[in-house]
């Protein structure tokens, strides 16, 4: 961040605001100290001095000079610092010290007098009463301490007026720089990712502060995007690869057909075109389901009816192969979802089961409700899928080793998995010991109304 951009930095603006508030509160604090520690005591001293002046004058009128001297010489109450002086002819001090400077201040006066200890002049607030042509009594209080306090507060005010803005500016600057460095790290990562480097991640300092949390969240998001892009890439690589073979064969058939017409070749070319179309249809269907912008349709379904339809659909094929299908479908189950897609998903599971079960084998279809979710299981007595391949058979075009020769596109289970995800569910492959057991767990199944 350049200095010219400082005023645009939120942190810097916050630091300035903080500085203003800080300065204002220091000023307020000092003001309160001034009023409570200086102004009010001074006013009290002034009132007291005036009262004492009246008392001294009264004492003189009633008792004459001896009474006044006794009044002036009386011990002061503890804790107070009285100033008492009696000036004779030529302003000579008869008692106390003569003021060196007098400033009238309303009913009372402020005087300066030499310190009895000799350490410079002191200030006092006094009441000066002329009792006769050559007799003046001065009574009041030493305010040197109050003065010192006032000086201290003034000095504090002065210093804070200089130090607070300087310190605030420096701290604001440091804070903006620190924050902007963290933000800069996020911005530059985002730019790098936008430019195509999906492997970039935001630096995490390990302090666990809010910037670290933000960085971790962003990194998770980037990892997810990266994963999606990778899978899209691998899918498009696969698609390109899978389409090349039928396209090459189609082209070859058409080239030969151009030279010598042959109905058998036309037939084969059409088959290749159909295969291509099947791959496209299946891929688009999976992609649409995965995109699932609108979520699944919410048809109210009877899972038992849907499953028995699917079993009924596959029964001739299974029987032709010498495979039996048994179904355990309790009544009273309910499900909301897309009827066509769920039927197709179950059909794909049955298709796999029939394809992989040897003659004499059994396929078992079950449905049950467990913890509010509908479980649909299709188990066969075929060779099953080795645990290390189970995660991959839901990838598009993946054929488990040994399956390459079996008919199919390798797009059946990916579709089942996509349909499950669209319905907030999962597809899980387990061992049926022996054989494969595919379990669809689907969203919330609601009680029938």
């Amino acid at each position, binding site marked *: 961040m350049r200095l010219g951009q400082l005023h645009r930095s939120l942190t810097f603006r916050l630091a300035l605001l903080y500085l203003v508030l800080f300065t204002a509160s220091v000023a307020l604090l000092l003001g309160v100290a001034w009023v409570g520690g200086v102004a009010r005591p001074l006013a009290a001293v002034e009132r007291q001095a005036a009262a004492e002046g009246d008392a001294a004058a009264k004492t003189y009128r009633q008792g004459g000079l001896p009474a006044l001297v006794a009044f002036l010489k009386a011990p002061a109450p503890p804790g107070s610092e009285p100033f008492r002086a009696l000036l004779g002819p030529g302003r000579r001090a008869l008692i106390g010290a003569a003021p060196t400077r007098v400033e009238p201040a309303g009913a009372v006066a402020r005087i300066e007098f030499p310190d009895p200890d000799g350490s410079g002049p002191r200030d006092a607030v006094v009441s000066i009463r002329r009792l006769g042509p050559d007799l003046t009594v001065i009574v009041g209080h030493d305010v040197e301490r109050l003065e010192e306090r006032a000086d201290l507060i003034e000095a504090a005010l002065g210093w804070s007026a200089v130090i607070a803005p300087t310190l605030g500016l420096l701290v604001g600057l440091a804070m903006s720089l620190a924050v902007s460095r963290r933000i800069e790290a996020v911005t530059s990562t985002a730019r790098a990712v936008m430019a195509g480097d999906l492997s970039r991640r935001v630096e995490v300092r390990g302090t666990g502060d809010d910037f670290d949390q933000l960085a971790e969240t962003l990194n998770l998001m980037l990892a997810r995007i990266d994963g999606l892009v990778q899978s899209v890439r691998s899918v498009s690589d696969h698609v390109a690869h899978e389409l090349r073979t039928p396209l090459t064969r189609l082209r070859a058939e058409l080239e030969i057909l151009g030279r010598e017409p042959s109905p058998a070749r036309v037939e084969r070319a059409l088959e290749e075109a159909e295969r291509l*179309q099947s791959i*496209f249809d299946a891929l688009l269907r999976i992609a649409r389901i995965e995109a699932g912008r609108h979520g699944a349709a919410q048809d109210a379904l009877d899972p038992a009816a849907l499953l028995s339809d699917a079993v009924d659909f596959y029964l001739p094929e299974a029987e032709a192969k010498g495979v039996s299908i048994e179904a355990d479908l309790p009544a009273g189950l309910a499900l909301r979802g897309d009827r066509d897609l769920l039927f197709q998903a179950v059909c794909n599971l049955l298709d796999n089961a029939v394809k992989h079960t040897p003659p004499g084998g059994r396929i078992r279809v079950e449905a049950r409700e467990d913890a509010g979710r509908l479980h649909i299981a299709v188990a066969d007595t075929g060779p099953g899928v080795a645990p290390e391949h189970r995660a991959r058979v839901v990838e598009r075009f993946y054929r488990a080793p040994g399956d390459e020769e079996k008919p199919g596109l390798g797009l059946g289970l990916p579709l089942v998995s996509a349909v499950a995800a669209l319905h907030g569910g999962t597809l899980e492959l387990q061992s049926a010991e022996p054989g494969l057991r595919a379990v669809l767990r689907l969203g919330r199944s609601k009680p029938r109304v």
Partner: protein
Amino acid sequence: MRVLVVEDDPGVAEHVERGLGEAGFATCRVGDGAAALERLDAGAYSAVVLDRMLPGLDGLKVLQTLRARGDRTPVLILSALGELDDRVEGLKLGGDDYLAKPFAISELTARVQALTRRATETERTRLVFGDLEMDLVTREVRRGGRRADLTVREFRLLEFLMRNAGATVTRAMILETVWGYSFDPQTNIIDQHVRRLRQKIDRDGERSLIQTVRGAGYALGADGG
């Protein structure tokens, strides 16, 4: 029979027109929705092949307008694979059938044939094809007087084939009509059902009544009966 083809893509339109022409339909082609409504207002068509995405007036709007003015001409909606609920939406607005692009031309012509047939068909209690008889009330099927025992599903499959006798029905159409699920099966499962049905109604040593139409589907004795 005249079919109106509403399609803005010249390549697709030509393909559709040629396919329908080969199936014996006369075709008329327009490229946008307003022109389609004009044509439909002026003359009677047996069916409309309506593209979902059209310049100007959207295909579904055309369908809505058509139905709003009381025109019951059967409409087949064509749509690029887009939204999952395209089909449902199209049928709800009064479409009679739906086909997603890309489609095999045989699938399209089979569906248009079924639509025009459905429109002219009157309620019947008996279907007859040669010596094959189906009583829709007692649900009895006889071939040359011999009774055939069909399951419910087999009965519906044969009924569908008989109602469309002479015309091709595709595997997707069978799945839709007989099972009531809509998707392209992409498997030969339906072939197994047809094989069983054949075993029950065919006579030994004779050519099957249910013929396989390569690359398309099945037809009840296109050349027999």
